């Protein structure tokens, strides 16, 4: 008869207390936020009286996790970028050419002379002057293949070589493409993260989405275009041998070469070899500095491989110009004065101090391996977020009050129990949200308000059932017990179905919708918990104390 064992009581009350404790920091949001920021600053080595004072704002033994506010509540920028993974195929093929050329040139005796043919960007076509030996040439090129270094692509080679008439066609294998895509996106993600971290904003979200997309959310930033500037363009730095200088944009470049415009001299173009001598990936450092004439410049240093390549090239080509190319534009094309052995150098151009600083940052963070296309851009002003929070607060309070009054009017004492459970419920939702570090969005607030409305459902089911049982059962204790027993299957079935939809929403949705799914799902968990355990415990305790002969529900 209406008994709950002591350990269960302790467990139930303990869980409630824990939930509320976890929720507590949210009641002092700005305070705890300042405290957290101060702790973070301390961790990076900052100190000072101000930070000291800020760390006093919140006791150390208390939980300090807060519910993250989504962009729609805090303001900020959101970008969905697609990494143009095909860019890398092209770069790979272009860099294959010198290798293939050198190989086949050595075998001129057997396969004859070779010539690079124009082709699609993700393949390399080489025509052999002796068509009957194209198969042999292909076999030689095949020797350049290396095994793919990835889990899924194990056992296959990175290139596929086939023949088409008198041409040898080189393409990346399917396994290599997949491995490259994955590497490219991960690299891009890392570089974006580094660039955003250099600016130092709070809690940016940088996530991979699907196979080739990156989601970037930065709270507190002015606009999406500002964010795009930080992420920057590709900042692909390469060094190319210069074939000649021209003022004709449409000049024929010749195979294996390309025409690039000069960045600061209008109407000047350079014909350069497409395959770079060294590229920015081999840079290890870049710093803003000044040249001998005290003009802003960027000094850089290569890693050992890059330094060797650069050293060899400069030693062999003293007197000829080479081009420093940034994102397809020639920054400068100095003439090599002497062998440069150490792998460090300086880029001069018509920079302002700010430009040289930016360029150094971009180079240091590393070049994005491929271009980004922005599929989605959202800027939400902080005012809108603040308005939404304000409106959400008022609406929640009013909703709360309305439901509380209504429940009391309908169920009297039992309504009060349900109301306590409801208040507890919202506390628990916030506690759980803080615990898992979830993000609260505007639809998320709607989810909480909806939960307020629906959370009473489980209690209503029980109370209605108790009312019914009171008509037939022997005594109030039995009626309460039967009420809980019989309402249980309806409560579980009803909430599991809603929970299923919340899970699907979470899995399929993105951004704000996901925020809604989280609060809805957590709301279901907490409301079932409070209805089955908490209100029951309250009723049992009340019943033990009062021992009423009759009850009215």
């Amino acid at each position, binding site marked *: 008869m209406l008994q709950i064992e002591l350990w269960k009581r302790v467990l139930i009350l303990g869980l409630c207390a824990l939930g509320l404790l976890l929720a507590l920091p949210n009641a002092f949001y700005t305070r705890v936020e300042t405290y957290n920021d101060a702790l973070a600053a301390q961790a990076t080595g900052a100190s000072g009286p101000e930070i000291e004072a800020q760390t006093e704002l919140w006791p150390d033994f208390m939980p300090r996790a807060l519910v993250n506010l989504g962009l729609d509540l805090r303001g900020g920028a959101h970008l969905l970028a697609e990494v143009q993974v095909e860019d890398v195929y092209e770069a790979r093929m272009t860099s294959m050419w010198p290798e293939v050329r050198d190989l086949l040139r050595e075998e001129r005796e057997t396969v004859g002379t070779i010539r690079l043919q124009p082709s699609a960007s993700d393949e390399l076509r080489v025509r052999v002057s002796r068509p009957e030996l194209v198969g042999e040439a292909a076999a030689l090129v095949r020797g350049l293949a290396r095994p793919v270094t990835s889990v899924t692509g194990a056992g296959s080679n990175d290139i596929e070589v086939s023949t088409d008439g008198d041409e040898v066609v080189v393409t990346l294998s399917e396994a290599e493409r997949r491995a490259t895509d994955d590497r490219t996106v991960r690299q891009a993600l890392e570089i974006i993260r580094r660039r955003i971290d250099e600016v130092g904003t709070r809690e940016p979200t940088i996530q991979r989405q699907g196979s080739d997309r990156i989601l970037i959310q930065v709270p507190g930033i002015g606009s999406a275009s500002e964010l795009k500037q930080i992420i920057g363009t590709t900042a692909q730095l390469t060094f190319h041998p210069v074939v000649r200088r021209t003022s004709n944009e449409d000049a024929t470049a010749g195979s294996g070469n390309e025409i690039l415009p000069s960045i600061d001299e209008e109407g000047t173009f350079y014909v350069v070899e497409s395959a770079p001598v060294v590229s920015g990936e081999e840079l290890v450092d870049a710093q803003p500095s000044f040249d001998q004439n005290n003009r802003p410049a960027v000094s850089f240093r290569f890693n050992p491989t890059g330094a060797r390549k650069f050293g060899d090239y400069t030693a062999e080509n003293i007197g000829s110009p080479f081009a420093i190319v940034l994102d397809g534009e020639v920054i400068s094309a100095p003439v090599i004065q002497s062998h440069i052995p150490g792998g460090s150098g300086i880029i001069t151009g018509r920079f302002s101090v700010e430009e040289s600083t930016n360029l150094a940052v971009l180079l240091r963070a590393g070049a994005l391996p491929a271009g980004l*296309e922005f599929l989605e851009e959202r800027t939400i002003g902080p005012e809108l977020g603040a308005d939404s929070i304000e409106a959400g607060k008022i609406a929640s309070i009013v909703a709360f009050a309305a439901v509380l009054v209504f429940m009391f009017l309908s169920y009297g004492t039992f309504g009060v129990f349900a109301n306590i459970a409801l208040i507890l419920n919202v506390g628990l939702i916030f506690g759980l949200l803080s615990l898992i570090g979830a993000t609260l969005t505007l639809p998320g607030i709607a989810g909480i308000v909806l939960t307020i*409305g629906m959370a009473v459902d489980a209690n209503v089911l029980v109370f209605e059932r108790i009312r019914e049982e009171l008509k037939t059962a022997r005594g109030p204790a039995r009626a309460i017990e039967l009420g809980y027993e019989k309402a249980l299957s309806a409560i579980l079935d*009803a909430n599991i179905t809603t929970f*299923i939809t919340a899970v699907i929403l979470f899995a*399929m*949705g993105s951004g704000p*919708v996901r925020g809604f799914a989280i609060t809805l799902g957590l709301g279901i968990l907490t409301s079932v918990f409070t209805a089955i355990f908490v209100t029951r415990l309250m009723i049992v305790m009340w019943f033990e104390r009062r021992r009423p002969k009759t009850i009215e529900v």
Partner: protein
Amino acid sequence: MRLKLVPQETNWNFFGKPRLTLGLSVVLIVLAAVSFLLQGLNYGIDFRGGTTIRTESAQPVDVGAYRDAISPLNLGDVAISEVFDPGFDEDQNVTMIRIQAQEGQESVSAEVIAEVENALKQVAPDITFISVESVGPKVSGELIKTAVIAVLLAIGAVLVYIWLRFEWQFALGAVAALVHDVILTIGVFSELQIKFDLAIIAALLTIVGYSLNDTVVVFDRVRENLRKYKKKDLKEVLNISINETLSRTVMTSVTTLLALISLFVLGGDVIRGFVFAMIWGVIVGTYSSVFVAAIILYWLGVKRDWSKPDANTGNQFANVDA
């Protein structure tokens, strides 16, 4: 004295006028379908790509002047509407500007947005741009796809769950009620041309969850009563079950509506469409669990004797058991 929305004992006949209740549903579904086919939904940029700009200015908004300022930029279809909300201050004049997706571009370029902003500043110098959102056609296409999949998946998962917990007739009844609710909600959005965006899909799925919640509670009671009243015919058992759960159905709907209405009035204009969908969903969801789900269940018939698996009582569909 307790507040009682429904009398303690009710014995209403919910199957008394099937032509009226089902007829109403059928008429509404037809209206929804016609509206959807004729004028379609007013898709937000989430689903058709493009850019929305939310502006705010202390001066009263002159939509015509805004339009004149933007039209020389040749951006194609530009919709400008003023937003009203009781929560706004007196000098808070808000507009939403929607620009269609530009040919051959994934998201509207920063330059275009800057041009629009400059043009508007000529008309209203103190104008501020509260939010700028831009979605490319590639993503919007995928969003529609995932949204449709999500709704279908939710319905499918629920169908399976109820089938496992009850009988297939119950599952069909519940899903019929669900589809009814989803169609009517989409119909209202089409008829009133309220902006249909990603958040509305969330609302639709919640309606799916809510409507089920209601239906499952009624079905749970039907299952119980089928065991209790073995002699009564199905129609009577259904009626008893609905009557017994009626008080709870109404109570829960009212508390949920109370919460939603406060959000609708006070929650700001950003989520008003979303909340509207939910309110409507709660109303039709409650209606459908009483009038649609139960009637379908009645038509399909159910296995009566739960102790003997194959003993069916007289009903034309009784042999069609899974």
